[in-house]
């Protein structure tokens, strides 16, 4: 299989995944348990974005960056400020050679 057929397959499968959620819910109310599932997924994505080093745990500059982002959130910074804090500290720590 070359690249383009693979891309088409991924595209079709992804579109099916996108349609599945609303299709399963239909006109009904969203079940109560789905919200914690979504929250769990988002929290998981935050953690993975911080410590995922290609399939294994990696504690590097991102930990400092996300730590700075947490601080920014606690200080009620807007979204842009939190992202800048996270990105900035990560870049600085990397530049300093600490992961």
């Amino acid at each position: 299989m070359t690249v383009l057929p693979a891309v088409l397959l991924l595209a079709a499968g992804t579109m099916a995944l996108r349609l599945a959620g609303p299709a399963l819910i239909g006109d009904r109310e969203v079940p109560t348990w789905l919200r914690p599932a979504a929250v769990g997924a988002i929290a998981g994505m935050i953690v993975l974005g911080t410590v995922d080093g290609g399939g294994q745990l990696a504690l590097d500059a991102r930990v400092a960056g996300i730590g700075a982002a947490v601080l920014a959130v606690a200080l009620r910074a807007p979204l842009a400020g939190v992202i800048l804090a996270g990105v900035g500290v990560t870049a600085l720590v990397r530049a300093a050679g600490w992961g």
Partner: protein
Amino acid sequence: MSNITHAPYENTSAGLPVPSAIARDVATLCVAVAAYGVAFGVLGRAIGLHPALVVAISVLVYAGGSQMALLGVLAAGGAPLAGVASGLVINSRLVAFGAVAAPLMQGGRGRRLLAAYLLTDEVATLATAQPDERAGQRMFWVSGIALWLSWQLSTVVGAAVGGILGDPAAVGLDAAFPAAFLVLLLPLLRGPAERAAAVGGGVGAVVGLQLLPAGMPVLLAMATGLLAAAAVTRLGRGRVPVEAVPVEAVPAEAVPVEAVPVAVGSGSRP
């Protein structure tokens, strides 16, 4: 942090979030998404894909994580089908996000199709965090269209400039999305069940990272998040036997009530 409520949007008298606040946050995310779109475009060219193919991938698949995973497999010389499998696992979270955002994606067939196509993690999170369904629908479409444009245009830019740009990680850009989702997550933490779900999800992600292939740790995080929320809800019920206590005497914390569940229709009164 549990008693800090990040309420990003003050409502106008019509009950809708202030447009400037929506625009500000969506614009911020557009910048973050654009940075990754450029990275994807550059990476695609770096492994030798035709620029038109790189752009086509972003249009057809429109899911950054899986797009990067596909490139990773191709770069390592793996079979494209393996990249497809990995990508589909990574994108399976879209089922949950689509389900939670379902009330905000309604309409005629064409509209529902477009809504599904525009669905991403960020769009779903932003939209379901809104205080009510009308605001949620507005946020869905505004962020859905804006982020799509951002991704496509930045992919074009990245594919066009090729290898001129350096490594996104060097400038700390890989921290952008975890940082953004931190902020986006907070309005969703409306009660003890959701907060437990966040902790459970984080733990599940770390465990899954050690044991599972790409994309699956997030699915495990969903499951552990669910379990944690269920456990907390059950403990809450156990403390206060509803039949034996007059309604006024029930302390607010013992009963995880969702004050404004309209956006996802999830009234969690036990």
